Structure formats: structure tokens, C-alpha cells
């Protein structure tokens, strides 16, 4: 059923008895042309764009738990394309353009809200760095504005402008950045992919990747063997574990990242704000909770939770930027597992195993990348060639010395 105003009206008149489940709960077929492991945002987006733009035959998405149970439902919902390096900007800008057309394309309300992302700067050197970043964005056709202190203060009056240690000097604004309802992204892609015939198989954990003569033939799962002519991995957080089933070692460490939500408040923060002197970023959800986060905990982890020193550090950043939130009560905090790569940038590439494709290493920037990640991964799987905007995200770039290190901190995954 296509969702529309007319459909809502029709269902209102008949007591909402006509709504159908948004997707089928498929049982696995013996074989598919393409199997995607991972029923999160990236996997579902990949399946959707494969079915929508490429003719690859039967497609399945297998998910070990329920649909959208991983990082797609555990992030802070921010979208932006304010990157610095040439390998990154066109990719994230494609993602932004896909976000802008997403709801029409998948016929689902994902609450895409381009409310603006403000990166605050606190020193002359940081202004220069943000001006450079803004110029790099504009050279690639991305919107960016450098705001001085007075302009910023007129827009966002409640920041601690007089802070003695971290005085606010201005901000880099990407007005097209914003937030998207994260769960709805998974549900929207799932429903749209399902309507194009993709089988979404939940509660189906992959236990092995079968190969013959160096080429993938299928997967062993808790629901039996599923044959696959091509296999795509989109399991960020567990990429090393799943890739090891095919004998691969990846340039990735798994780390815990925490996020936080306060009690619901009246509308207060109508954009996304990041603190430049520490790691803290905040927005307000449509339910009213302040959603914020900061740095990784900094040590390898597969436990989806963090520790108190990081919570203290994040909250100190928040208090230095906007002391008014000090009395808001925290109602929830949680951790997610991030694929942290050795240069802080993702991987969308073929692997040394034939017909095995890898989408991994999203660090803590995977949510905003969801549409372009799916779009480019679908292109790679269908055409067997890299999409031009994902051309830098090669698996062999570490051996080749072509790293994409936005922060310039080297092979230290906990610092990216």
C-alpha cells in the first residue's frame, strides 16, 4: 500500500483496519543472487538501491536479530556533509542529496529536518581551520557559511560566550545539515525494499561463510544454509567477526561510543551544535529530549555500554558550552559498537575473496552516510566497479599509503 494523505483519510473512515505490515517476515529461499548480511540502515539501503537501480535478480537481507536493532537505532541522528578531504566530501554530499529526496523515493516519513549544523570555534587558529574546511566544502559545491560571534549570538543566544577558558568566536554553519528520525530510516528502506521484492530475513544469524575455489558460495546461518552468488557484508560494529568467517583480517578495532538523552523539555535547541574545544554535540529530538554525545570511551569493546569517566567528560563539555542544561535530568544513556578504522574513514570495496563485498569501518559517522553507503555499495555489487564518489574507500589503501585521515592522528583508532 502506498502511504499518502488519501490513504490516511480512507483508513480513518474505516477504523484503520486496512493497514498492512510494512514488510513481509520472509523465510529464507535456498539461493539468492545477492545476499546482504546486516539488516541495519546500510544493509537495507543497499538492498533497496540494488532492487531499484540494478537488475541483479533475487536479493535477501539477513539480520541476526530484529530489523534495525544495531547502530541504526543507537545513534544521535545527525546528518551533515561538512568534511575536509577530497576523498570524503563528494561521498557525504551525495548522501546529503539522497537524504533530501529520501522520503519521496521510499514513500516513508523519515522526518528529515535540515535544521542546520553549527560547529562552534573558540580561537583564531580554530577559525582558520574552520574557514579552510568551509572553503573546501564550497569548492565541492557544498553549502558552508562562516559566522562571526555577533551573527552567531543573534541566532543562538544561550551559549556561554563569555567563558574565560573557551570564549566563543563564531561558527561554521552548514544550513543543509540537520537530523533524521533514525529508526524510520531503517523502516523506510525496509518497506521500500520489500515492496521491490527483497526478502528481509530476521532472527537469522550468520555462523559461517562457505567458499569454493576462493569464491563465495553462500552462508551458514541459524536458519540453515543460504546460497549466494554474491555476498555483501554491512555489519559495522561486528565487521571483523563476520569477515573472519571468510579468513579476512581488517584494519578495524571495535570501540564503544556512548550517547545520552535528557528528560523532554520544551523546544529549546532548534539546530545541531558542536563544541569546538572538546568533543560534545547536541540536538533536541521532536519528543523534546536533548540528544547529545562526545568521544569514544577509547578502549576496544564489544559490550554495548561505556564507563563513567567518559560520561563526566562529555557532560563537562556540555556545561562549558551551554551551562543552562546543567539541571536537565538524564533519562537514558547507552553505548553502541563502532567499527573504528586505522584512518577514521570507511571501506566500500571488493575483498580478496571473490564475490565477497565489504561495507565497513564507519567509525562513528555511519548514520549520515546511510543513503550514499547503500547507493555506492549497491553499485559495487551490481557493476563490480567502485562508484566514483566512493573511489577512495578502498581496502588496500592502508598497504598503499593512501589513507584518508580527516583528523591526522595516524593509525590510532581510538583517537579518530
Amino acid at each position: 500500500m502506498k502511504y499518502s494523505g488519501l490513504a490516511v483519510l480512507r483508513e480513518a473512515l474505516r477504523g484503520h483496519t486496512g493497514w498492512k505490515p510494512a514488510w513481509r517476515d520472509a523465510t529464507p529461499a535456498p539461493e539468492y543472487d545477492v545476499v546482504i548480511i546486516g539488516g541495519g540502515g546500510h544493509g537495507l539501503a543497499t538492498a533497496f538501491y540494488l532492487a531499484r537501480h540494478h537488475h541483479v535478480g533475487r536479493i535477501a537481507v539477513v539480520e541476526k536479530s530484529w530489523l534495525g536493532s544495531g547502530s541504526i537505532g543507537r545513534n544521535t541522528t545527525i546528518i551533515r556533509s561538512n568534511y575536509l578531504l577530497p576523498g570524503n566530501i563528494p561521498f557525504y554530499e551525495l548522501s546529503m542529496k539522497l537524504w533530501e529526496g529520501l522520503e519521496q523515493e521510499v514513500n516513508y516519513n523519515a522526518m528529515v529536518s535540515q535544521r542546520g549544523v553549527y560547529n562552534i570555534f573558540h580561537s583564531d587558529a580554530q577559525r582558520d581551520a574552520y574557514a579552510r574546511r568551509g572553503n573546501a566544502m564550497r569548492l565541492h559545491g557544498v553549502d558552508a557559511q562562516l559566522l562571526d560571534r555577533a551573527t552567531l549570538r543573534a541566532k543562538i543566544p544561550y551559549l556561554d560566550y563569555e567563558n574565560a577558558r573557551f570564549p566563543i568566536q563564531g561558527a561554521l554553519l552548514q544550513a543543509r545539515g540537520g537530523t533524521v528520525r533514525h529508526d524510520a530510516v531503517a523502516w523506510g528502506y525496509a518497506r521500500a525494499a520489500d515492496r521491490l521484492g527483497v526478502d528481509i530475513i530476521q532472527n537469522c544469524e550468520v555462523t559461517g561463510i562457505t567458499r569454493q575455489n576462493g569464491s563465495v558460495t553462500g552462508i551458514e546461518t541459524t536458519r540453515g544454509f543460504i546460497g549466494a552468488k554474491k555476498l555483501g557484508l554491512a555489519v559495522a560494529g561486528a565487521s571483523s567477526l563476520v569477515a573472519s568467517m571468510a579468513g579476512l583480517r581488517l584494519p578495524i578495532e571495535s570501540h564503544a561510543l556512548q550517547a545520552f538523552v535528557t528528560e523532554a523539555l520544551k523546544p529549546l535547541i532548534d539546530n545541531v551544535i558542536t563544541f569546538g574545544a572538546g568533543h560534545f554535540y547536541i540536538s533536541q529530538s521532536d519528543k523534546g529530549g536533548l540528544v547529545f554525545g562526545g568521544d569514544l570511551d577509547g578502549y576496544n569493546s564489544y559490550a554495548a555500554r561505556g564507563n563513567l569517566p567518559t560520561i563526566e567528560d562529555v557532560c563537562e563539555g556540555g556545561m562549558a558550552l551551554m551551562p543552562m542544561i546543567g539541571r536537565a535530568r538524564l533519562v537514558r544513556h547507552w553505548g553502541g559498537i563502532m567499527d573504528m578504522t586505522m584512518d577514521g574513514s570507511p571501506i566500500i570495496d571488493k575483498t580478496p575473496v571473490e564475490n565477497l563485498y565489504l561495507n565497513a569501518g564507519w567509525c562513528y559517522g555511519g548514520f549520515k552516510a546511510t543513503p550514499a553507503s547503500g547507493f555506492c555499495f549497491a553499485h559495487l555489487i551490481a557493476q563490480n566497479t567502485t562508484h566514483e564518489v566512493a573511489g577512495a574507500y578502498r581496502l588496500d589503501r592502508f598497504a598503499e599509503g593512501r589513507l584518508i585521515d580527516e583528523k591526522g592522528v595516524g593509525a590510532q583508532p581510538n583517537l579518530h
Partner: protein
Amino acid sequence: MRITCPHCGQRGLEEFLYHGDATPQRPSDGGATPTVEWTDYVYLRDNKNFAHEELWYHSAGCHAWLRVTRDLSTHEIQDVRQA
């Protein structure tokens, strides 16, 4: 999470700096030319779940380098020794 330093006793996480997987072995050839061994050492990790041997530096304590074994699924510290 607390680490029991062999010199200082049980201390909070904020006293320590993390330096990652303790198991990769630095190649002995000096690194003048790029090799597969160097790529492995610098970039590739097993990244398995459960018991993980890792290096921690007691920066706000005795400045010792520690080799810690920790369960990545629970954060339980199973062993601490001088690196």
C-alpha cells in the same frame, strides 16, 4: 572499570591511557621499505571478542606500562602484569 596496577593498587580508569592490542609484533627489518609484515603490524588487527591482551599506561600514577587481559564482552579485567 578499574585496573589493579601491580605498583599502585586498584585505580580508576581516568588514571590510565590506552594503547591498544598488545599482541602485534614489530617487524625487525627496520622498516626502510614497505612490506606486508609492516602493513599487518601497523594496520591489521584480529579484533576478536572476549579475552583481549592490551597495553595500558599508568599516566597519572607510576608511569608503568601494563599488559592487561580484559574480556571485551563484559569489560571484566582478568589479568594485569608489567608489560
